[in-house]
């Protein structure tokens, strides 16, 4: 093969690699595309979603009302009349008022038998 042809071939190969790279960048994995969508909607979303925030929310499932944090938030809220900005994490908005045992809904067991047992 002549020198010129070799160089031409090499140039062609390089171009193909570049084109390939371009194609790859365009074909984003569906997961990454979904991630981009989410970040576009919630720009303040943390980069470590599986980390402590999410897990601690999971651990606190069922936590309904009063603790000192709620108390302080309620006090602050009454002072400032300012709602916290909606965050990306789906935290329950607590701290609206200071609950008392009378406020808590009395959950009674269901007196009706299961409909599977009919």
């Amino acid at each position, binding site marked *: 093969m002549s020198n010129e042809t070799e160089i031409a071939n090499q140039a062609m190969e390089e171009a193909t690699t570049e084109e390939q790279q371009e194609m790859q960048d365009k074909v984003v994995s569906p*997961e990454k595309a*979904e991630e981009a969508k989410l970040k576009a*909607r919630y720009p303040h979303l943390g980069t470590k979603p599986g980390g402590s925030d999410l897990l601690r929310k999971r651990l606190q499932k069922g936590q309904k009302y009063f603790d000192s944090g709620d108390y302080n938030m309620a006090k602050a809220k009454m002072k400032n009349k300012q709602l916290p900005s909606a965050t990306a994490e789906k935290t329950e908005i607590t701290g609206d008022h200071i609950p008392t045992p009378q406020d808590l809904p009395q959950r009674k067991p269901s007196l009706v038998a299961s409909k599977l047992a009919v």
Partner: protein
Amino acid sequence: AMAGVGGGNDFQWCFSQVKGAIDEDVAEADIISTVEFNYSGELLATGDKGGRVVIFQREQESKNRPLSRGEYNVYSTFQSHEPEFDYLKSLEIEEKINKIRWLPQQNAAHFLLSTNDKTIKLWKISERDKRAEGYNLKDEDGRLRDPFRITTLRVPVLMPMDLMVEASPRRIFANAHTYHINSISVNSDHETYLSADDLRINLWHLEITDRSFNIVDIKPANMEELTEVITAAECHPHQCNVFVYSSSKGTIRLCDMRAAALCDRHSKFFEEPEDPSSRSFFSEIISSISDVKFSHSGRYMMTRDYLSVKVWDLNMENRPVETYQVHEYLRSKLCSLYENDCIFDKFECCWNGSDSAIMTGSYNNFFRMFDRNTRRDITLEASRENSKPRAMLKPRKVCTGGKRKKDEISVDSLDFNKKILHTAWHPKENVIAVAATNNLYIFQDKIN
């Protein structure tokens, strides 16, 4: 598709029964939260969000009623757990039954463990079909007889009575879990069982309720450092010293209780290597394992994460031996599944009796079965539209893009509120129970 093609392992699933209300308005309490066959398959238990347990019993085949061959009918029902409020911690404790596990049968009575987020209970279900009559000191209606009027002595006689099935709580295992119980598992020694919450696993003796041994504790000293939680745990079916637990990071740890009293250090660590370039915001969330089940043989275990089911050989820690895609088309929907919380749905999985097939649920009341030998898979639907007696189930297909064929359903038409999280396979026969929100479907293989 698996069905209808002929060949040894192909199943032909047919509708058998459906239990539960038909109305569209589903009460939260009626949502089924666990389904479990007992060791013989004669009994099928369900638990619901309202804290109730319903046990079905399989009818004996009889010449008189050939059409009800193998049908499951209500055997017993009771309120297992009730809602509670922990005032000290300001914590609402749901009555929802998270898991039911049967004990192996040792006498005429049946025993099961049922658990909510905080308390495990051992229930005894016993039959009474005889009644003693002819007491000396009291009448048949229970009134005491005047002792001075008794002139003769008689021996009470056992008379038959209408069958009565009674459920009574025999043990209550409470106050051992700070976090929410996700699993219970009876040990092969039939004496102990384990209970697992988000951060700890405890070992109990079935006879002892005031003590339990903590065998795993992954709570960090500083909760800010929390990176993963325990999602499921199970005892090995034959080796009473071995158990596994899965994590929210997609890993499984196998522990040997002979090694140490506290099994914080695993004996085996199962994790599939991840391609770092494909990592996204969703990677860890969808890798979280929602269920782990040993095969009946004890040689394999199966894990369910959001999009797939993996079979692991206990002798190989670095990757699963089989991976089955449940609903890969959801990968391009992860953003909306995160927003509507569906990405956190916890699907269970189960083996058939011979470990040749596995089953797990999906959305739109679809459930999936994989034949491990033929590598064929099928998608079926639990629907009242296909509920004529012994009607064969038609395979379903989700169209992922392009032209939707007739009978296919597009990804965007799937109903994500119709989730099949809980399924169970009869330990010996091809009978399956599928919980679809508030309805329980039972399907049988035609060649059964």
